[in-house]
């Protein structure tokens, strides 16, 4: 029997290719170790954050003061939390374009009730989480049950939810938020450590544990990497996909409350004015999660959010007009994507998420 001509994998030499195999003597082991560490996107981002920080501080000593560092970190928290949800969706080979109106809906709903009825902040928390989860269920349903490609399904929910946000506002803005909200937005846990930063770090940690250490989280990677193989391995693919969108909505709702506390107001354009969609996807891509799914993680995305916040702050300190902000973010996305040699699989996003075989019952 001859081997079949088509699969070239057959003839590939049997090599156990590790990350970087040491070719020289044992002296280069340390160097190889260093190179492997430097390959990690998280490490690259930490270096980039520190490098940009050093550069800006050298040129503008004011950039390096503790209060500015706290500001940069606190400013990144909203996007960081949304980006963590976005990351989970992207890991499942999806995308969630509806995060900005989910954030906006949460912010205006809690805002109006707080301003008019003096809503307790804990009840507001429950409210935004419920809203975010509910809206996430909507997107998740369209993608995983109806089977609409994610980019189209969430484009639809983006528009629908944005419309609802507009209706709720009825042309008004929330301005007089009770002080308890805005105080919390500015409060420090320890001197120089804002509460918001602690919350952001908490969300990232929980997401990290979820993705690495739970059955569902682990399945997200498998589904994003190869949905067919995941289904054949007994993983409930559609349920996993659904869960990712629900989590994304949940976190976008949480981010809505943080937005409200930080900004102290909310309007019909909250969420979309700060380009939440673009920024969350930017942080995710910069953080090393690929749109191909199955590769990356929330820590990189959180660092990506910090880096974006720092870069925007740097632009301010260099007196670059903020109308250039989106262009700057776009440039960073390009750099991140080019650095990730696989590129952006545009067609992948328009493909049906997962087609369960016709005969399968589950």
């Amino acid at each position, binding site marked *: *029997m*001859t*081997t*079949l*001509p*088509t*699969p*070239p*994998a*057959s*003839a*590939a*030499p*049997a*090599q*156990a*290719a*590790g*990350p970087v*195999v040491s070719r020289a003597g044992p002296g280069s082991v340390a160097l190889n170790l260093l190179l492997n560490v430097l390959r990690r996107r998280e490490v690259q981002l930490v270096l980039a954050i520190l490098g940009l920080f050093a550069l800006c501080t050298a040129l503008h000593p004011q950039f390096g003061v503790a209060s500015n560092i706290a500001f940069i970190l606190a400013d990144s928290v909203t996007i960081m939390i949304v980006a963590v949800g976005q990351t989970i969706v992207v890991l499942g080979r999806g995308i969630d374009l509806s995060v900005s109106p989910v954030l906006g809906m949460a912010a205006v709903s809690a805002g109006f009730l707080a301003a008019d009825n003096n809503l307790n902040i804990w009840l507001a928390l429950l409210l935004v989480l419920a809203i975010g989860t509910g809206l996430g269920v909507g997107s998740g349903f369209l993608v995983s049950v109806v089977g609409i490609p994610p980019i189209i399904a969430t484009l639809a929910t983006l528009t629908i939810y944005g419309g609802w946000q507009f209706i709720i506002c009825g042309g008004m803005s929330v301005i007089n938020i009770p002080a308890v909200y805005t105080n919390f937005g500015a409060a420090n846990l320890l001197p120089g450590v804002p509460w918001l930063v602690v919350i952001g770090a908490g969300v990232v940690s929980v997401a990290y*544990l979820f993705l690495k*250490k*739970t*059955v569902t989280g*682990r*399945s997200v*990677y*498998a589904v994003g*990497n*190869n949905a*067919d*193989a*995941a*289904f*054949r*391995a*007994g*993983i*409930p693919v559609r349920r996993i996909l659904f869960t990712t969108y629900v989590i994304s909505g949940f976190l976008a709702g949480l981010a809505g409350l943080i937005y409200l506390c930080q900004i102290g107001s909310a309007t019909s354009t909250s969420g979309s004015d700060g380009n939440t969609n673009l920024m969350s996807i930017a942080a995710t891509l910069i953080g090393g999660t690929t749109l*191909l799914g*199955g*590769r990356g993680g929330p820590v990189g995305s959180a660092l990506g959010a910090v880096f974006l916040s720092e870069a925007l702050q740097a632009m301010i300190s260099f007196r670059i007009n903020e109308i250039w902000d989106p262009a700057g973010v776009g440039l960073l996305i390009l750099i991140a994507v080019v650095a990730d040699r696989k590129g952006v699989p545009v067609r992948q996003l328009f493909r049906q998420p997962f087609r369960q*075989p*016709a*005969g*399968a*019952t*589950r």
Partner: protein
Amino acid sequence: MWVPLRYWRSGEMSAHNLSLDGLEVLARQNEPGTRVTSGPSAAVGLQGKRYTANSVTKSFDGAAVLSEVSITFEPGEIHTIVGENGAGKSTLVKIMAGIYQPDSGELLLGQDRLAGLTPRSAQHRGIYLVPQEPALMASLSITENLFVGILRRGRLRFNVDWASMKREASAHLARVGLDIDPECRAEELSVAQQQLVECARALVHRCAVIYFDEPTSPLTAKEAGTLFDVMGSLRSDGYTLGFISHRLDEVLAISDRVTVLRDGAKVLSAPRSEVDKAALVKAMIGRELITRERVRPHFDAAGRKEMLAVEGLTSAPSFEEVSFSVRAGEIVGLAGLVGSGRTEIAETIFGLRRTDRGTVRVEGRLLEHRAPRICIDAGLVYLPEDRGRHGIFAEVEVERNVTAGVIPRLERFGPLLKPSAERVMAQQATEKTAVRMASLDTLMKALSGGNQQRAMLSRWLLAGPRVAIFDEPTRGVDVGAKDDIYRLVAQLADEGLALVLISSELNELTITCDRVLAMYEGQVVGELSGAEIADASLGALVVGGHLK
């Protein structure tokens, strides 16, 4: 939308080129003194040429697929190439159609030596390959599909002359027996109709040397009959026709000459009148069926517990009324060609396909609404045929690839998985199948095909199966891994696992299986056990022959 645009542009360019070197040259050579006019009448007058391959050799990644094959296709003849899967049939016609370049050897069209042939230049020379699966652009009209690459310009030079193309399209469609509106979109047609459109495309491109690469495998007998009528009428018009099939009955019915390839070499080439079915079967499978020792003595499973019982399983149109059972410690083979329904049976058992009728029992327990999770939990696992698409998670570590089938069963601390327990499991599982890798943290894509397959096997063994279906377990793996996999299969059976082994390689089945079911066209056509497996009748059964 960019797909049609791209083709449009290339179409305009090629219309220009074609008028210079392709069409008219061909026409002049074929019809001296005749002025070519556009339209079907000219196409009818096309005359095929003798097309010869001399000592063509081709290998992929070091594996020889064709060695020193010489073959001649004469005008006015249907010349059929038969052979088992992997014998090199498709590779040969792909070389003749310019899709692959031969490593050595030459191609002669009439008196011309063709060097550096590409699919495009082959078409300009009048050589066309109708692919195994029709490759039409689903959302474009039939007219556009027919004229892709040679869209005709209208009087304004930048517009497209739809009217004349439509007229010509209708005529060509009628020529291949298709009575359809050339305006309808390709996706509205059945596979058989699409195949005929491919054939019409060859005519539109004024190709008089046409190859058909297993065109009948997706067709019903009646549809195949229509195709044969068209081929017959092209033959009487002097076209040069090459045909690939492994359905021997149809081969004998329509061929003028038959060539048999085995393991990339020509073993027989004779006029139809000089061969019969027995001669072809013998040539296809050869004498030396057994080249290896059995990995395990024949095992008599009588009295052992019945682990898998399949009763009257049907999933039309792939296969019908399939029944078999596998006992503990027994290895049962499913032999058959690609498309005979082997993989479809496995997928239906595993809940990946619709079940029309029939039952599946594992250890006597009826599995009613089957899905992978349910089957795995019942002790039934399925190693898929296409490892890359259905098996591995390429970007994920080996460890997690191995434990993917059992994540819900892993030891936990609250909601969190215990990493140490998982590592130990993965360690043991990969040791059993001898996966060679830098570490368990190596990404799956970095492993060779053989090691990926070992990792896949360890995934399924980790699930603690009592019944395992291995679909082409040695496909795309190196020789050393093959031997290891055979030994593992034998060892698993010794340990009491009930095994179903699917393979296109009959040798593989003869050295491992205790019983073999032969599949042909969705039916179980025979069952062999013990020493019977080793003789040539298995080879005859899977190509539609009979027990001797």
